[in-house]
């Protein structure tokens, strides 16, 4: 662990901000947890403070629940009306547990029965990132590209809408949000040559109200007269077609497989799109819009208001899908409505969420593939020596899973810091090698990943979004592949792939408490107030996902290129953890 002290300027900046109540990061909190990111601003911050720096060391296991499944568990449990809801990986069960009774017995389980063949379609384990509660229903996605609404009381299916075709390589793993009566969802499958989209479904009926593609003509990207991107590079007609060779945009990727944030006052949703396909960038000259981009859209119509391409013509598999935390900050003397986006390219983008202007984009993890962002043009400055593609490159950092992958950060309005679970991985790309798909030889790139500088593959760090720098950081042996949760008790929680659930002091990073769970943690911890008035902390264990596929998928540790090259970096994980989905709930005695 290394620490950096905060400058007096940072403290001053915190004092100068607008009245706390007006800021978007100060969300009302009733002690429940109704959506994966806790609130529309995606802060993952709880105002509960019973568990705090003074007593967290007394935290004890309260009860557990086995999901009976062994793939990677990435979801956040929801807590609504004294019931806990858990979505599992494929076959995507939804469990309801009764928190009013000792040991939280199961009330019901809903089983959507997704098509078994969808398992072969998902690129990186058959995960699910969770459900959202709204108006008496639980909404979530199934791997075979359905969105379902389930009655939160009875467990009966209310509607079930098929949105895509697993036979075309699509799947669905993201966590929906519900905004203005629309359930907003997106597809996965960027590794299978699909075309990415985001869709808004009527929350009552499941009817598709709109669908916005990430590539193609403006009419299908839902770009119209109100589209006002900040930078010149984002302006022009039909860029979703014209920045591609020929018809390549039709299979160009740009899926939305993770999170959506919402600002009710601006009435804008925010999300990012995945990397472009095909993998070999030489086959798709151009910026490949709107892949690896951020969008601001209207939730009712899907209409695009602005967009910003984080990684034009991405060559490193840097998806733009990571979370967007909505904050109102005083930056350089001005109150700004921003979003904080820690990107795969290892840069923390602080972007004016009203306009799409980049205010800062400094690195939170080691990076040598880019030099920075030109704030005047918005252009990412790319290191030409690390451009992947047809030729062999070495020591490119971060590796394809990025400075940070899907694992969501948290923000504490008390400290003004963003808590970032992340990676420290580099890679080499060894040109072409023979591969095949049933009967058909082809060539693919041979990607190997390994630990970045320092030898640790992961890190958990605290970031000051005003000063644009790291305040403290804790090293982890494996990529920190779980989400974070921050609390008013000045304790932040996260889990590690080798199975430690940890509580850190949010101002110093000091480890205050840890508990060894049965399987590695790659999920999103939550905290809530139980019916007995006590604060609980809950987390799913169950290693897997892209990083943990070596355990959950039984991949061969000798084949370093398996799981798109991630196995090479994770070959020892099996020595530290075994698979198995289990919920752990903790409280003070």
């Amino acid at each position, binding site marked *: 662990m290394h620490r950096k002290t905060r400058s007096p300027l940072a403290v001053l900046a915190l004092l100068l901000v607008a009245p706390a109540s007006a800021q978007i990061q100060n969300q009302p909190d009733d002690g429940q947890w109704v959506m994966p990111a806790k609130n529309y601003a995606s802060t993952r911050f709880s105002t509960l403070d019973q568990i705090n720096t003074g007593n967290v060391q007394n935290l004890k296991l309260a009860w557990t629940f086995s999901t009976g499944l062994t793939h990677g568990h990435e979801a956040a449990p929801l807590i609504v009306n004294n019931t806990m809801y858990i979505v599992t990986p494929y076959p995507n069960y939804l469990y309801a547990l009764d928190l009013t009774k000792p040991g939280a017995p199961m009330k019901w389980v809903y089983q959507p029965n997704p098509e078994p*063949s969808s398992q072969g379609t998902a690129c990186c384990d058959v995960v699910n990132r969770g459900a959202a509660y709204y108006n008496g229903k639980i909404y979530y996605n199934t791997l075979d590209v359905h969105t379902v609404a389930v009655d939160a009381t009875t467990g009966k299916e209310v509607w079930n809408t098929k949105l895509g075709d697993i036979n075309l390589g699509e799947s669905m793993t993201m966590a929906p949000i519900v905004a203005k009566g629309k359930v907003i969802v997106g597809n996965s499958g960027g590794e*299978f*040559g699909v075309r990415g989209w985001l869709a808004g479904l009527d929350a009552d009926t499941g009817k598709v109200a709109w669908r916005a593609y990430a590539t193609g003509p403006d009419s299908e990207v839902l770009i119209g007269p109100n589209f006002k991107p900040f930078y010149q590079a984002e302006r022009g007609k039909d860029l979703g077609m014209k920045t591609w*060779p020929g018809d390549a945009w*039709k299979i160009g990727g740009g899926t939305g497989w993770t999170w959506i944030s919402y600002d009710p006052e601006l009435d804008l949703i925010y999300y990012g799109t995945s990397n472009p396909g095909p993998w070999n960038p030489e086959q798709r*000259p151009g910026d490949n819009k709107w892949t690896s981009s951020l969008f601001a859209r209207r939730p009712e119509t899907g209409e695009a208001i602005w967009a910003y391409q984080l990684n034009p013509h991405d060559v490193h598999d840097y998806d733009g899908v990571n979370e967007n935390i909505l904050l109102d900050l005083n930056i350089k003397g001005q109150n700004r409505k921003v979003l904080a986006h820690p990107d795969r390219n290892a840069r923390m983008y602080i972007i004016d969420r009203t306009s799409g202007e980049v205010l800062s984009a400094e690195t939170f993890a080691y990076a040598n593939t880019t030099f920075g962002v030109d704030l005047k043009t918005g252009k990412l400055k790319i290191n030409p020596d690390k451009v992947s593609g*047809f030729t062999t490159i070495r020591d490119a950092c971060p590796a394809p899973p990025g400075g940070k992958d899907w694992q969501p950060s948290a923000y504490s309005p008390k400290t003004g810091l963003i808590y970032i679970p992340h990676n420290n991985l580099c890679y080499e790309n060894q040109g072409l090698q023979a591969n095949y798909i*049933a009967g*058909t030889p082809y060539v*693919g790139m041979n990607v190997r990943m390994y630990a970045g500088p320092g030898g640790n593959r992961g890190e958990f760090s605290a970031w000051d979004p005003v000063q644009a720098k790291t305040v403290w950081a804790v090293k982890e042996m494996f990529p920190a592949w779980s989400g974070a949760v921050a609390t008013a008790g000045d304790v932040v929680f996260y889990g590690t792939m080798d199975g430690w659930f940890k509580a850190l002091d949010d101002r110093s990073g000091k480890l205050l408490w840890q508990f060894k769970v049965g399987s590695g943690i790659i999920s999103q911890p939550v905290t809530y107030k139980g019916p007995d008035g006590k604060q609980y902390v809950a987390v799913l264990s169950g290693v897997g996902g892209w990083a943990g596929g070596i355990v959950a998928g039984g991949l061969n540790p000798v084949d370093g290129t398996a799981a798109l090259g991630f196995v090479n970096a994770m070959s020892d994980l099996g020595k530290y953890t075994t698979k198995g989905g289990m919920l752990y709930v903790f409280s003070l005695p």
Partner: protein
Amino acid sequence: MATLVHGAENVLRVCADPNNMPFSNQRQEGLENKLAKLVAEQMGAKLEYTWWSERGSLAKNTLNAGRCDVLMGVPTSLDEVTVTEPYYRSTYVFVSRRDRDLRITSLADSRLSDLKIGIHVVGEDLAPPAYALARCGVTRNVVGFSLFGAYGEENPPRKLVDAVERGDVDVAIVWGPFAGFFAQSANAPLEITPVAPPLFFGVPFTYDISMGVRKGNDALKDELNSVVERESAAIQKLLARYGVPEVH
């Protein structure tokens, strides 16, 4: 004799795609199905199939997961399995309508900058010819056809050859066995020409094809090798029947 004793009888356990003609299908009509039957007969073993339409890592999830003991057709250069001696060598080919009289034989043909070219997309990668064309700056006029296609349909890889027949693309560059087989039942005569040169900008277009067994299963490999050697005439006849363009 065979090492594959399960219970009292010899069993040859094969993993195969249920919908991937001309190689295999669930009705066992493909050339790899016929080859498996021949091999099983020669070994005095009962043939058993595990059908698997994995689009990612087939060898990993079938052979190396223990679901079967042999994959009937893998590139000889594939390093995740142990391979037999190759039993054929084929090539990527140009496919065009004979009445177009294009006579394209080389990736260096300057007309490829303007013609509409169809190429299979394998997952997130285009098939090898697209790599070489990209090196020549030919990308704008390349149209990707998913090899997996809409998997619920019969013969998804056929769509590319159909597109040539219909004139949706001027020329397809496709793995030889697909072209040779689907051309047999095309409504318009199609011209099939091996892609030259066989190695272009470091990208190979010809591949030796072997049977694959799990690493270390040399006993089975040896047994399969002896069948390949003994039955080479029958195997050659089989390949010809399915229209496989062979190169030597």
